[in-house]
């Protein structure tokens, strides 16, 4: 039986998940109006919120193309994320990244890569530097990647090295069942990514990725184990990519029954119901929360849309150090 979070922590989890959702849906609207498409994390908010909450400020995060949840849970400002997606100067990467490779070193979100497997190739090095005293003392690294990334050979190379060198690295596989336009059942002979990981000889846990409390619990255990042992741990979070791979996506290739089943297990809906049942929030409270979040996203959008475009004069800035 997992511990119940206190009221503040529980409400914070709900609010952060809702903020991520509102942010992602605002980007969907923006894309419809002509902005670049994005890979939204709708349906996976509990993974980001649960894992990030288990980390400290001294820890580092390495992420991938579906990074908005990780960034927002870590405290990234939606307005600067939106400015980045729109290619404006006030974005976290000055508009160079767009949505696909947003890093924010100030938040400890380092080296986001949209090359699937890129995150896994770099994370051991970040953890090695932590271990060799380059980061904040005692810091560990969490790397977020998908079930698709686990199909790249680099997945096994990274796991082997992390175990061999005992690197303080938390592997977080968000198994959302999809690898762009291919279902994972079509690409893997093994039933779960965790089965592959176990062969490498590290602590492995499979968790319901749509239950934020369960994710937080498991992540906290894994983080404690990494801090105690110095070596890596592995979490597989079972979840679902509710929207398409990249906006827009009509999802005609998705089995509607499977999708409906997962929509019933929407992480935000599940959590709202749980908090309501615990008496921590009521309908009025939920409405007020949603209004507050919507207002903040509207303000963020206004900021991003009025942010300046980068000057073409700066085209070759940052190529070399």
């Amino acid at each position, binding site marked *: 039986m997992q511990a119940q979070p206190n009221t503040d922590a529980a409400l914070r989890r709900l609010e952060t998940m809702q903020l991520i959702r509102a942010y992602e849906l605002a980007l969907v609207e923006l894309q419809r109006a002509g902005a670049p498409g994005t890979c939204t994390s709708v349906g996976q908010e509990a993974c980001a919120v649960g894992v990030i909450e288990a980390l400290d400020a001294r820890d580092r995060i390495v992420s991938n193309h579906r990074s908005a949840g990780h960034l927002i849970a870590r405290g990234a400002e939606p307005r600067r994320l939106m400015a980045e997606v729109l290619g404006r100067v006030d974005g976290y990467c000055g508009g160079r990244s767009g949505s696909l490779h947003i890093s924010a070193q100030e938040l400890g979100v380092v080296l986001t890569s949209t*090359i699937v*497997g890129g995150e896994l190739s770099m994370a051991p090095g970040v953890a090695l530097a932590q271990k060799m005293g380059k980061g904040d003392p005692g810091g560990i690294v969490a790397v977020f990647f998908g079930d698709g*990334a686990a199909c*790249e050979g680099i997945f096994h190379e990274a796991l082997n090295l992390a175990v061999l060198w005992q690197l303080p690295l938390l592997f977080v596989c968000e198994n959302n069942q999809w690898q762009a336009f291919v279902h994972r059942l079509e690409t893997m002979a093994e039933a779960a990514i965790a089965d592959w990981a176990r062969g490498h000889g590290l602590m492995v846990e499979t968790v319901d990725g749509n239950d934020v409390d369960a994710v937080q619990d498991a992540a906290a255990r894994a983080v404690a184990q990494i801090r105690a042992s110095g070596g890596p741990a592995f979490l597989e979070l079972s979840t679902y990519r509710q929207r398409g791979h990249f906006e827009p996506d009509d999802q005609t290739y998705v089995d509607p029954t499977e999708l409906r089943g997962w929509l019933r297990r929407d992480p935000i809906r599940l959590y709202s119901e749980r908090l309501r049942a615990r008496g921590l929030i009521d309908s009025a409270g939920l409405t007020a929360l949603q209004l507050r979040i919507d207002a903040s996203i509207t303000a963020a959008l206004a900021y991003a849309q009025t942010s300046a475009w980068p000057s073409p*004069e700066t085209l*070759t800035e940052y190529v070399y150090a």
Partner: protein
Amino acid sequence: MTPYSAIPKMSRMTAEQAMHQALREEFQRDPDVMLMGEGVATKRRDLLDDFSAARVRNTPLAEAIIAGTAVGAAASGLRPVIDLLFAPFMTYAMDALVNSAGKLRYLSGGQFRFPLVAIGMTGGGWSVGGQHNHNLEAMFVHAPGLKVVMPAAPADFKGLLKAAIRDDNPVLFFADIGLLHEAGDVPEQDDFIVPIGRAAVRRVGDDVTLVAYAKTVNVCMQAAAQLEAEGIAAEVIDLRSLKPLDVDSVLNSVRKTGRLIIVHEASGLCGIAAELASLAATHAYASLRAPIIRLTGPDAPAAASWVLEQAAIPTVEAVAQASRDLVEFMPVSLSETNLCTPNHRSAGSQSCIY
């Protein structure tokens, strides 16, 4: 007069549709042709339905093994086409393509052949940034044993893809993202092929030769139209194949015009333009009436921001201005630096590395 029956039946379609038609026709023609890649069976559902799941395969998300499998299968009698999605993902496949497909025919003393095609999209237009948009075609040109094509017109997307599938060598087929949805006339007959290694003269002119491939062909065509109004006749050559290069077409044109500008979106360093400039300087030296100019992308990753992405692509105005500069060129009147034209006038900070 061309007999009516010899006039090819044309259909209007996009470059993307032309590629699909090429695949469909080659699937029909040769049972050894097969397709592998992340989502190819999802995206090309009709091929899966009309041919077989054995020949149209969704793969795991794993470019190294997709390419490696294609190499092994090609050496063993199949004719695989692999869709590696965006060109930067090809770096994962580089070992199989460069070290295996490109070298093992030679290193085995000619025992094997590798009839495979690797497709990758690239180029500006989608604001996706440098991990999806990287014109790295010259890297593969540099690798022995590989052929490289990059079409501009929808008809060439079809004809070159069919030629690539029939070729007994590994062929890298680069599709410019910015062109995929452009429509054009495409011949319908089954035996329509565009031979690899042959350029197309898109416009005839005597004053300056503009050489380009992929999206910069259209940039040059627009510049040529502008220049015509000013009394400058530009000849526009669409390379279509980057290896083998149709050197004769370029040299013949330069011998006529005496002026050469090469334009591509890829970085200029050690690129196609550099190769052609060198060939022209060596083999058409006596004909040259002015220095050779390269207008290329910068030595920088592609940015996502629309403004920066577009600033990296040679513009119509830059091509037109470079043409005027060459036509007006007098050895004493212009210093060398005046001809170091940055590819985009507003991207002023771009240093002149030539």
